[in-house]
Structure formats: C-alpha cells, structure tokens
C-alpha cells in the first residue's frame, strides 16, 4: 500500500495534533444514597416492629453497602445494626428490587413502643460513612382485628363456587399489600373448621369480614372440606369442593390463625360466593320477509306529458300491471277520496294472499302547484299509519317515484313513505331540520357532470331521476344508456297480533313484537355492557307501569335496581318501516360526434343499493352478552377482568353499566394473586 507525499503529510499533521491534546484525571462522581421506602410500623397487639426499606443511588449501590436501623424504647437503646441480623418474628425472603438497589423487610419482637427510629445506609461494610434518614414511623394500637393488625385473612371462590381459595393480605398504613410482599415479607396462616351457611355479617368498615364475628355463626354447617389448610404464600385453595348441599349457602366461615411475636392469633374469616350470572335474554328475533309489490300509476289519461318518461317510471318500479289512476281532474275536491278508495280496494285484494305489502306508486305529472302531490300525501296518510299498526299481512309503507322532486310535508307519512327524487331542504331555511329517509336515500342531484374530451362527451344519470334530468339526458345521449332497474324488493318485519308500537318522537318507533321480556325476582339484578353487542343500541324496554315510555336497554339495570324484581318487555327501535333493496344497471353514457353524425355508446355497471332502515337486513338481534342477569349473591364482591377481587363493591352497584368479564382463580392456584 502506498501513500503519496501530500496525503502522508496531512496524516502526520493530524496525528501530531491529536497527540498534542492534554490528558486529565478521571473525576470522582458523587452518588449519594436515596431512600425510596423507609418505613417502620409497630403493632401493639402483635408486639412486632416491622421495617421496610428500599434504597438506591444514582450510580447504584453494591453488595458491600449495608442497611442498618437503630431505635430507643423504654427497655433501652438498640444501636445500629442490620435488622436481618436479629431473630425475626416472620419470614423475610431476600428480594431484589433491581440492580444497584438494596431493599428488604424485617420484623423484630418489640414489646414496648419504639421511639427515635433511624435508618442508615452505610456505603461500605468496612467504612463509617453513611446516609441517615428518619423513617416514616407508625404505631398501631390494639383494637379490632381487621383494622389493628398487620394481616387479614379472607376467602374467595373459584368460578364454580365450590372451591374456596383462602387468601392473606398485608395491612400497613403506608405500604400496599403487594409492596410488602415485594419487600420479602411472608406471613404463614392456617385455616380450620370450615362451615357454610347464610348468615354473612355486614360491616362496611370490614370489607374482608376478617374477625367480623367472635366465632363462626351457629347456623353454619360443617363443610366437610379440608380439615387444615396452610400456606406461607398469600393464597391457597381447598383441596376439596363444597358439597352440593352448600349450593344455596352464600358463604363459608373458618378459623384463621396467624403468628405474631406474642405467639398466634386466631379470628374468623369468611369466603363469599361469586355472583351467579347468566345472559338475561339471548336474542330478539323478528322475522323479516320480502313484501308484495302493489303497483299504481297516477297519470293524466286525456293527455300525454312524456311517454318516454312514463315508461321509464314504470320500468324503475318494475310495474307489470299497475292500477292506473287518472289524474286529469285532480283539482276536484273528491280526488283524494277516490284515490284512497282505489288504494284500499287494491290492498284488500292483495291482502288475501297473506303477505305484507308495499305500495309502489309512479306519479307522472307536471303539476307545479303541488296540489296533486299533497292530495296523494293525504290519501296515503289515511292508509299507511293504520296499516303500520296492523297485524301481518299489512301495508308496510309506500315508495313513490315522482316526476318532480318533492319533500314530504305530511308528518303522518314522513316516516312511512319513500318519496323519490327528494328535494333537499336548504339549510339556510332551517339549519336544524334533519333530513327524512327520502332525503337521505334519493336526494335529487344536479344533472350528471358532463366530461367533454374533444368530440367525445361522457355523462351518467341517477337511477331515479326527475323528469327534467331524464329529458336533459335524452337530449344528449341514448335512452338505452339511461339505466335499468333489475330488481326491487322491500323487506319488513312481520308483526304479530300482539305487536304494539310506541313513538319515540318524530323520528322513530319502538315495536314490541311478540311479548319478548325479561323477568327478575327479588335479589336479582342486571348488568348492561354496550361494548359486547352492537345490536344492543336498537333494543328498548318498557315496564307495565310506563308502557308508553320505553327506555334504552342500557337503562334497564338502574331502573330494575330501584324497582327490585319486575318484568321488562323488550322491543326494537326503528326509523323506517321497511328496507328497499334496489339492483340496477347504471351506464356511463357517451357520444362521439363524427363529421355528420353522433354515435352513442355506453359502459354498463351493475349496482346494488338499499334505501330505508338498514336494521331490517337481520332477523336476530343478539343481546346475550350485552345484558347479564345476576341470579344469586348479587350483593357480594366480584372479580374483574384482571382477577382483582373488589372486596368493597357489590356486583349490583358496580356492574349496572359495566361489562362483567371476571377472571376467577382456578384450583389449585395459590401463590400470590393480584391484590393491590
């Protein structure tokens, strides 16, 4: 390898520059000890002084560092010493709190109240330099077992409510149960004399019911399970399950013994059964069927407006042999009644076939005064509301294909008739007016935008155009390219003889189809979980006392919790009585201008669309996971998703609008369950 002279010179210069830099000594870095936990708790009844410590330093402590305590009491002074070096009252395991940290716990027998407690961290066992702190010190006087002792014992059940898991829980004033465990404290306990029964003590200050009774209630029966259960961990399962005779018992009571510096301490411990739940109602079924088309054409008979347009209207509604209603004299006073009579007559004929019906009306007119459409609205208002409430076979609603865009004004049919094409309400006129179903489904659109590329023009036409749009389109393109309806079917739920509707204002109804109801006895409660059912928002309920005031299903648990027991009828909410499914061919129409002629052409696409209430696409609305019913032990605590036992809360109060997805302990799991 060769370097040229210039490169070598530069290399040498850089090299020398590096060497000319001065060297300096490595500095010392200060790394003082910092206590994260420094606590001392003395329990008078237990004659036990607990120490808890967790100390580290920015650069980490090493194993050569030593933690020490000192205190004074009426028996004299205890000088600096490692707390582990003395005899311990309880088991304290060596634990790691992370690299560079020193942590642990200790328990000494101290009969008289300690004072002047000090903790220190000596940086090296051979040195004298240390960091001294005054720990958080607590004195717990003698008193009730559940409040004045350092450990409580309670029981929980597995999912089957047969096996009891007995648990211990550390109780320190400024240290959580799991923190004390993490610092190495272990408390052996043993369980004897297990009995079952139905006389749970109630004391809101004693959520775990530890020592709630001097002895287990006399009414309790020997459980016949393990004679002795013991562990030095925090939980242990009975080896044997409760007998079948104990199914109705709400709890198990036992004698729990723990050790302390005075010897041993025995108190009663209770295990409460888990709330028993099931799906309150599996699914709401409502058979949905295709309806029979009842076709009408309303058109002048003595003159022709546009034969092409009329034929298009008939084709779009797929009317084979519609009843024709002449509208030449629509200004006469009795026109509405005549029209209504014709509707009634035809409906009556079709009803005999036994199927639900939908009216398909082609309205061919050029009346800009709106007299005709208003009379048609009135005629439909005489029929549709009554038919809606009838038992099947009935008329579910009407689909009107108008020649001119229109907005339904009659409130009686606003939610019963699809009127296409629909005009959009100018938001400047009424910014708060919500569009009705017609306006949402078939709003009139401006004429399809036309694309001009040299001699080629491209455009398209909506499948349900106004006459003006249709004629404009035909002026430029071929009739063949205007589109074609291939199928048109209305779907609606079948009503029973006992179906009832309750209005929810102007926009929706709730239909109680066939006496679908949930019932609850005394002591039974409900839980609603919206996250577990997308259908649940469509379910309403009502009580006999408030039959005209249905409420969302989510309100059922709170209403029932107040009422206790009761019967609740379930219904479906809907905003339009039928679903209209259209399948049609849509064309991208084009024409090319040659020198002397125009050549039309089109590209066809098959399309499917649905107008009306999308809910009628399904016949079953699942609510088995959305609505749970607690049948027993509903006032007991419960497990949540993480397996944490919520000892202070009852299922009834906590689960009204929460999802109940418990994670139960499983036999023979023991160890250290989640218990913050």
């Amino acid at each position, binding site marked *: 390898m060769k370097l040229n002279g210039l490169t070598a010179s530069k290399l040498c210069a850089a090299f020398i520059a590096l*060497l000319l*830099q001065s*060297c300096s*000594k*490595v500095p010392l870095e200060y790394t003082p000890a910092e206590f994260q936990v420094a606590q001392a708790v003395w329990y008078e009844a237990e004659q036990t002084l607990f120490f808890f410590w967790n100390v580290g330093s920015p650069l980490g402590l090493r*194993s050569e560092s030593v933690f020490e305590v000192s205190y004074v009491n009426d028996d004299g002074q205890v000088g600096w010493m490692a707390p582990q070096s003395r005899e311990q009252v309880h088991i304290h395991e060596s634990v790691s709190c992370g690299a560079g940290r020193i942590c642990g716990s200790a328990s000494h027998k101290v009969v008289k109240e300690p004072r002047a407690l000090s903790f220190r961290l000596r*940086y090296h066992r051979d*040195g004298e330099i240390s960091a001294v702190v005054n720990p958080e010190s607590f004195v717990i006087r003698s008193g009730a077992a559940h409040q004045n002792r350092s450990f409580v014992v309670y029981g929980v059940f597995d999912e089957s409510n047969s096996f009891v898991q007995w648990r211990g829980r550390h109780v320190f004033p400024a240290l959580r149960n799991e923190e004390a465990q993490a610092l190495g404290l272990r408390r052996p306990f043993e369980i004897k004399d297990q009995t079952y029964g139905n006389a749970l003590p109630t004391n809101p200050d004693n959520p775990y019911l530890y020592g709630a009774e001097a002895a287990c209630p006399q009414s309790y029966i020997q459980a016949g399970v393990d004679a002795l259960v013991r562990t030095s961990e925090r939980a242990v399962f009975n080896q044997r399950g409760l007998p079948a005779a104990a199914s109705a018992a709400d709890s198990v009571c036992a004698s729990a013994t723990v050790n302390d510096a005075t010897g041993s301490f025995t108190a009663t411990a209770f295990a409460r059964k888990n709330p028993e739940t099931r799906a309150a109602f599996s699914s709401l079924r409502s058979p949905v069927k295709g309806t029979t088309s009842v076709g009408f054409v309303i058109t002048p008979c003595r003159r022709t407006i546009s034969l092409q347009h009329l034929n298009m209207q008939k084709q779009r509604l797929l009317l084979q042999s519609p009843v024709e209603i002449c509208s030449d004299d629509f200004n006469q006073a009795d026109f509405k009644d005549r029209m209504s009579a014709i509707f009634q007559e035809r409906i009556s004929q079709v009803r005999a076939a036994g199927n639900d019906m939908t009216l398909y009306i082609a309205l061919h007119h050029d009346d800009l005064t709106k007299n005709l459409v208003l009379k048609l609205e009135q005629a439909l208002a005489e029929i549709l509301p009554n038919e809606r409430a009838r038992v099947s076979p009935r008329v579910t609603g009407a689909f009107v294909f108008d020649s001119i865009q229109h907005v339904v004004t009659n409130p009686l049919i606003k939610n019963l008739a699809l009127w296409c094409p629909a005009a959009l309400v100018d938001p400047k006129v009424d910014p708060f007016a919500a569009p009705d179903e017609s306006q949402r489904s078939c709003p009139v659109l401006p004429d399809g935008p036309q694309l001009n590329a040299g001699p080629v023009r491209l455009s398209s036409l909506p499948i349900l155009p106004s006459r003006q749009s249709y004629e404009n389109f035909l002026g430029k393109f071929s009739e063949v390219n205007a589109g074609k309806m291939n199928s048109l079917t209305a779907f609606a739920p079948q009503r029973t003889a006992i179906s009832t509707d309750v209005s929810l204002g102007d926009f929706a109804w709730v239909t109680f189809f066939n006496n679908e109801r949930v019932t609850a006895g005394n002591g039974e409660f409900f839980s609603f979980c919206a996250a577990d059912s997308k259908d649940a928002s469509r379910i309403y309920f009502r009580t006999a006392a408030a039959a005209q005031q249905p409420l969302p299903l989510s309100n059922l648990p709170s209403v029932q919790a107040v009422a206790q027991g009761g019967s609740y009828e379930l219904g479906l909410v809907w905003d339009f009585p039928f679903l209209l499914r259209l399948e049609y061919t849509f064309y991208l129409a084009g024409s090319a201008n040659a020198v002397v002629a125009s050549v039309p052409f089109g590209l066809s696409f098959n399309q499917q669309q649905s107008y009306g209430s999308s809910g009628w696409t399904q016949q079953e609305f699942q609510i088995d996971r959305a609505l749970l019913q607690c049948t027993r032990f509903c006032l007991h605590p419960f497990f949540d998703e993480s397996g944490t036992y919520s000892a202070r809360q009852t299922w009834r109060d906590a689960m009204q609008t929460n999802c109940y997805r418990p994670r139960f302990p499983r036999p023979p799991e023991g160890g250290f369950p989640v218990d913050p």
Partner: protein
Amino acid sequence: MIRKISLFLLAFLCPSVALSAEDVVPFPALVERTVGVAGKSVRFDWRKKKNLIFVNVGQPVEYNNFETYRTAAAVQFPSENLTLGFGLAKALVFSTASADAIALMPYRQAGRPERWELELSGFYPVAEGVVTFRPDFMPAAQMVFSLAADVRYMVYPSLFSGQDFSNGFKSMIATRLSEADKDKLSPSAPAAMKIDSAKISVLTGFNLHLYTSGGLIVSSKAMLALSILGTAMPRHADLTLGLGYAL
C-alpha cells in the same frame, strides 16, 4: 590514489553508482539520506516478510485509581508503506488502596473492568534506518519509527452467561454496554468503579520496531487513547512493550 581505490571498491560493492569523480557521493551522506525518509531497508528487509508476530505487555495509564495491565498476542502484515495487524489482548484490572478508600464513600470513578480486547492496528513508517547498539558485540539492527493507530473492541465474556445465543450475540456486537450489562459486570468490577459504557476505544501514537538480521523484533508503542465514541474516560496514555518475530 586512495580516493581512486575507494571509488573502485564502491563501484564493486554498488555497481549502480557511477564511477566518475563528479558523481561520487560520500558513504555517510548516502546513509543519512535513508534516515528520516522511510523507504529502504538496509539491515533487514522487513517489508518482504509475510507476517510479523508479537507478544506484547503493556499498561494503559487511565488516570483513575485502578490498575490495568494488558497482555496481547498480535500479528502484523507488512506492505510497502502501511502495515496492518490484529491481535487479541487480555486486560487485567485491579483495585488499589486509593480505589478501596473511594469505595467507602458515596463516590465512584469511571473505569473499565477486566475484559478481553480485539485489536485492529495500523502503522505508517515515518523514519527508518540502521542503528548500532552499545555494547557493540550486539549486531546492528534495522530501526523503523511509525505513526500508529489502534481500534480496540472490548469483550466481556461474563455478559454471555445466562443468555441464549441470540441475546448473547446481540450483547456481543453492541457498541455500548447497556445498563443491564453494567449491572451484570458490576459485582466483579472494583467496588469504586463506575463502569464505562463504551466498548470501542481508539488510540493513536508512535511505534518503534527494531529488527535484527535474524528476524527478531523488539517493539515499543506509546499511544494516546482518545475520548470519543461515548466514553466517559478522558484521554489517557497506553504504553506497550513487545517481542516479535518476522516470518
């Protein structure tokens, strides 16, 4: 007459030298030309050797209170202008009375615990010539003075214990020690040591090789470790003595 005999002998020994009196260059002048401009071997042509192998001992002078000793085995590959080499070294680290005193207090000092080092070296000769020794029974030798640079990669075998192959490999190829790595090394490091995170060190300095005619090489190297690549160690010296052989 004497001058002519000398020229004759010179022409006999070195035929490329012209014999005319105007072109004659005195021998001392010829020798001086080779010193200070590395280029031609006179006593021993080390450039023609395939490999130079060395055993080195040294002491990194880290300017902290820990003692570090270093032994290495290295091989170098000479070429015309630049010699490259690699080696494997073991660095032994000890606490001292001063470090032990620091350990009694809440202070720490940056340092590097015991380790292996993979070493990549480069040498650029800048001066070369024949040197003689005192006492004079020792034969003259070829001296080569070079600029030198080392890149050293530190390997801590204890980091592999308890790890699967994948994690062990990742730990090995990492260019810095993670906090977990340092926690693992901490128990075996001197008590007062704050373990330096850097796993690569770069050194520059001078190297002196003395080649005997038999191929034996005496080497000494004075290097300066640069404070780059994320190290907490300031610049410090590194002195090495070595014995080698040209193959």
